[in-house]
């Protein structure tokens, strides 16, 4: 059962690493604008479609 000591310490280290990553992402401003990226994501498709159709025309 002494393995519990090791397991808890390892799990805590992992947890703390994720916690630090979270703080870093907040600091970088990732959560400042929660709306625009959700819209921007959809545009990427639109753009690709457009370029493909353009190529078809020029070819």
């Amino acid at each position, binding site marked *: *059962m002494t393995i519990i000591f090791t397991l808890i310490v390892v799990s*805590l280290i992992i947890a703390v690493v994720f*916690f630090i990553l*979270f*703080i870093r992402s907040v600091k970088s401003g990732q959560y400042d604008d929660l709306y*625009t990226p959700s819209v921007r994501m*959809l545009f990427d498709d*639109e*753009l690709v479609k457009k370029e493909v159709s353009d190529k078809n025309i020029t070819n």
Partner: protein
Amino acid sequence: MSKKNCFHCGTECNIHKIEFDNKVFCCNGCKTVFEILNQNELTCYYDLENTPGTIPSEIKGKYKYLDNDNIATKIVEFNDGQTSVVNFFIPSIHCSSCIWVLENLHKLNKGVKVSMVNFPKKEVRITYKNDQITLREVVELITSIAYEPYISLEDDDRKLTKINRTLIYQVAVAGFAFGNIMLLSFPEYFEMDEYWLNRFKPFFRGLMFVFSVPVVVYSARDYLISAYKGLVHGILNIDVPISLGILVLFGRSCYEIFSQTGQGYFDSLTGLIFFLLLGKVFQQKTYSFLSFERDYKSYFPIAVTKIHINKTEENIAVHDIKKGDRLLIRNEEIIPVDGILLNGNALLDYSFVTGESMPVIKKSGDKVYAGGKQTNAAIEMEVLQTVAQSYLTQLWSNDVFQKDNTKNIKSITDSISKYFTMIILSIALIAGIYWFTIDKGIAFQVVSAILIVACPCALALSAPFALGNMIRIFGKEKFYLKNTNVIEAISKVDALVFDKTGTITSNKSSQIYYEGTVLKNIELGQIKALLRASNHPLSRMLYDSLTVEESKEISEFEEILGKGIQGIIDGSKLRLGSGSFIGAMEELNNQTKIYVRINDTIKGKFIFQNTYRKGLEGVFKQLAENMDISILSGDNEGERLHLKEILPSHSKVLFNQKPEDKLEFIKKMQLEEKNIMMLGDGLNDAGALAQSNVGVAISENINVFSPACDGILDATVFSKLPVFIKLSYKTMSIIKISFVISFLYNIIGLLFAVSGNLSPIIAAILMPISSISVVLFVTVSTNIIAKKLLH
């Protein structure tokens, strides 16, 4: 001819419509935007949303001043010589198409490297190459596709404000520690004397201690500091009992684990701090697209065109304007200083200052005041006062604007916490003395247990959640408040002061009626034909209001700026315009009117009158039940009789009020112990808005300028004002009820504590239950009353 909507902006096209590429456009501007986007293969703009555009404004040379390096450096955020980064506020951003087209600027101009939109803030951040495109060209580029940035004097002394994310970190630390400590403390709750558990006990307890330290030291820091400050000033605010609870919890828990007498209350401690901080987060509702701190600077331009004696033009910063300078004010530009009109015909729109939507005509030699927007061809003026000393801007030297912005109102939670703290301390003292005579060891435990269980977590959470929820409900109903304190302030209001023009009258719709010899339909048709040729705003309004069919023939049309228009239609000579132009006696009242003359007879006049907002009478009637109502108007007394009719009998109506007079009026009423809500709209109300207990700006379009205030009310929901006030009352009653509930929890806890039975598990159950049930109660009940009253 069927009416169609503009392909670009969706406005209904009238006779001026333009057809292009099988699509209809309402004006040339919209067509041009379409052409630009079409040529650059950006028509996807129109696929994303229907009619996403707005009508572009004409700029001709407006942004020349951006070539001036001194001014440009104030606007550009970053410049390393090769690349520059600039951040623009663009009010017209409103849909996903806007985001798309603004983020594809690099397709329109190779000089633009990256452009990123922040939609909630309506901002775009553009990175561009200095050698390929200048700042002015960037601005002109986005203006050409109808996304004109908003550049004002405010940008001149803008401080780069850092976003404060401390609260998020504090919540994160508290939440992280709380979750871990809870798991670590579970084993001891369930198994008391088990072999393995006893071996792990010191390890688990040690970890709990380690986790709780940053929570107390970092996350709870603000509570401890605020309690300390309160005590220094002799105020028992809500943070005093909270801090006391936190410190006692922490102290006793440390004592228990180090003396190995128990497991401590670390889970309750971290849970308490976590919930309190969540309440704080919930309370902080901000509207990123609104600003409540604006003064004249965010409305005034950053630069103007100065004319030198040798007729050369130069762009200078507004702060550098000196007395005696000659300035050129183009169409759509704002006059930044007081001065004398030298030449040109001024048609000044003072709607942002006074709320009056009708432009004022000024002739050369007239004095013009700062804040007017020229809506005619360019004018020249001579400066009489510098920016800071002009008639309007002087208002900002008043003390009201120097004062700290936080109006000192004692919040309901703080006022109750004084008694709460006293009661708890005396209970702790009495119980302590009682147990001290029986058993000294237990006395320490009982006293600390009382202080722990009395920690007003539920009490401290009820106001933030009730007010935080209500501010969101208000926001959905288009009444935007600066912070949650405003709801409390509204609930105390017992006097209302309204501005007249633009506040209780509507800017958009004005009534037009005719006085004089009755006009035949043919004559009206002739008038309409003449109006069609004119671009003057009054002409356009009158044109739209005439429903007759217009005559076709028109010749010798002439527009005399600032005076009127004339022309020959179907053989009759028509003149429309001011009294002097027509040859009629001009009545000296503030009415806006157009005189009509056909051939040699003066027929009469069209009078433009502002209409009162819909439901105004109802609003007054409902409010008058328990409040004083006053109206302050900058205009003359023309409307007195009409206002008296719709107002309750004991109301005050004052006319000819200068901005300072309005401020003084509020001050005087406050000396009579009145809590005042001021409703205004223009810059001239700014002083009164700042002085009043609650200053509310009414806005027809919340994206454009509104003066500094505590709340912004969308004009469309003006009639709901009494409901908002009533909801504020109700919210405060709900908070009071929730206080009673949280006291009940405290009493239950105290029963455990004074009898010496408060085990960690009871504390760990009682605290979250009391907090969560109070939070649920206030959110559910605020939602219910809002639903009932608003719909």
